């Protein structure tokens, strides 16, 4: 029986990680996630853990790589420009099959951008970002409670599949303060006989991502692809909200945008519009299964804080069965309930908008 605490999104990431048995954080300040390293700088020593501010996001992801290889639960966090810096390290983590949590509290870009929220790192998170054939498990929360649940899930999936996982948050969620119930959660401990931490009593291990013979490298890649296929089959997650056989307009949104979309959908329903929502929670693997049956839906609207990134995956999965429309704002501007309602109302009048 837990108790409810009022917490800020960024800080909830830290407390959730500690509850999941993570005792190692390596990071660097960047707005809008600096509250997280500040929180863990205080909390880690309290629980006998390690907090280290590295000299850059590059250094931090490599510290994560080292600690992950030594067999401990470890995490880093940053925001968009810093996550760009981490891409090399992320590719290495994936190639070396190491578990770790990377948090991206998205801000608008490209380049230095601004500190306000965005969802414009969807491509970076789900389509690579780093080099090579790999995927990150990407989970996108839409409330502070869900941040806690998904941080724990990230560590579990990461350890289970020996692959890095990303929590994709945004600047708004990072600042949001909401009640959270940490419950009676006990993290699972996972044996890691492959770790490098001194070869006493066993043969020496080594962690690497280089296999110089191409046939061996292909074998390694086939092994990774098999892993990703298994994750795709088993770990798709999504929320269906007000979706039934009467729904005519399907809205697809993740994270903060899903919350705003839900308000718009409620207002639309009051105006007699039959709208519902699918909220992808796993962005990779994308919840293809959620879109298998399109019931009586007539048209689809994807809303994002970007120029339109997730909408490409929505179009792929709809596969021509229905028209897919997009509405978004960029540069840190957040679509309002009114703007989304207007989009839904227009689609009600003409479900297919030819641009």
């Amino acid at each position, binding site marked *: 029986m837990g108790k409810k605490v009022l917490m800020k999104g960024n800080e909830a990431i830290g407390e959730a990680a500690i509850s999941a048995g993570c005792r190692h954080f390596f990071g660097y300040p960047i707005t809008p996630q600096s509250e997280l390293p500040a929180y863990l700088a205080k909390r880690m020593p309290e629980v006998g853990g390690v907090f280290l501010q590295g000299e850059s996001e590059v250094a931090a992801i490599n510290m994560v790589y080292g600690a992950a290889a030594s067999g401990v639960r470890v995490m880093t966090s940053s925001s968009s420009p810093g996550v760009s810096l981490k891409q090399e390290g992320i590719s290495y983590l994936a190639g070396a099959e190491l578990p770790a949590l990377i948090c991206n509290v998205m801000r608008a870009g490209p380049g230095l951008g601004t500190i306000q929220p965005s969802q414009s790192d969807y491509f970076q998170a789900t389509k690579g970002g780093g080099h090579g054939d790999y995927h990150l498990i990407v989970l996108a929360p839409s409330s502070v409670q869900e941040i806690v649940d998904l941080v724990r899930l990230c560590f579990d999936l990461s350890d289970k599949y020996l692959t890095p996982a990303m929590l994709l948050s945004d600047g708004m969620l990072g600042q949001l303060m909401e009640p959270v119930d940490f419950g009676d959660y006990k993290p699972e401990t996972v044996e890691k006989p492959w770790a*490098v931490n001194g070869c006493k009593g066993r043969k020496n291990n080594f962690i690497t991502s280089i296999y110089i013979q191409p046939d061996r490298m292909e074998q390694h890649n086939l092994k990774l692809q098999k892993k990703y296929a298994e994750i795709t089959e088993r770990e798709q997650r999504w929320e269906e909200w007000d979706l039934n056989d009467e729904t005519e307009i399907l809205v697809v949104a993740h994270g903060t945008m899903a919350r705003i979309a839900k308000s718009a959908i409620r207002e639309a329903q009051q105006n007699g519009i039959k709208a519902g929502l699918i909220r992808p929670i796993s962005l990779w693997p994308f919840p293809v299964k959620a879109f298998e049956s399109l019931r009586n839906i007539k048209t689809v609207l994807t809303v994002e804080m970007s120029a339109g990134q997730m909408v490409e995956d929505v179009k792929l999965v709809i596969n021509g069965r229905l028209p897919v429309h997009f509405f978004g704002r960029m540069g840190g501007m957040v679509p309002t309930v009114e703007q989304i309602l207007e989009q839904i109302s227009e689609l009600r009048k003409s479900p297919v908008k030819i641009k």
Partner: protein
Amino acid sequence: MNKVFEKPKSLGDKHFSYCPGCTHGIIHRLIAETIDELDIRERTVGVSPVGCAVFAYEFFNFDMIGAAHGRAPAIATGIRRAHPECVVFTYQGDGDLAAIGTAEIVHAATRGEKITVIFVNNAIYGMTGGQMAPTTLLNQKTDTTPYGRTAAANGYPIRVCELLSTLEGTYFAQRVSVHNPANVIKARQAIRKAFSNQMEGKDFNIVEILSTCPSCWGLPPLKALDWLSENMIPYYPLGVYKDKDIRKEEAASA
């Protein structure tokens, strides 16, 4: 019959694949002998670089991890902070440590990270075929300085021991060479100190080892050893650049 010489336990059975005359072979052996002597094989974790020694983990017989180029000190930091009971060292070349890895090595040193760094300086990029390194000497010809390195175009070679010894976090920094038996013995002693310091909780220890690259220098192995002593040692003088033990002794006897 007494056994007077054997392969160290800390070396595996795989034959070295380095070029004829490459001093990586000597340095690997010195490290392995040190780890055997200090009896720390079972708690050592080594971090291998990107460079000719990228496959070092195939030659050593203890836990090792391959690093991204230049990042070994950060990776060593992650391992050491997670497992303070381990003895952690990095093995890095001149590009790895003094070009792409400059931030990582400076900050590991200034943090006084309790690691040992073995820095193999052969004034060239060997693995990629002989390009200029930050430690390439003025007038030295390489693939990317075909007319000889000039200060005007490429600045001056970096003296790493001198640079790192200005940082308070650096406990011990010594530059040695392996171009003849007398210096190999001194190198061995420096490496031993750099490891035993770590075991005694003394922060950040680096041994810079002047080394040859006969293949990319375009010299036969013995001539390469001469080239090292005639050209590298004048610019990179051998010696101890930092030793907080000496500083303490001096303070105690003052």
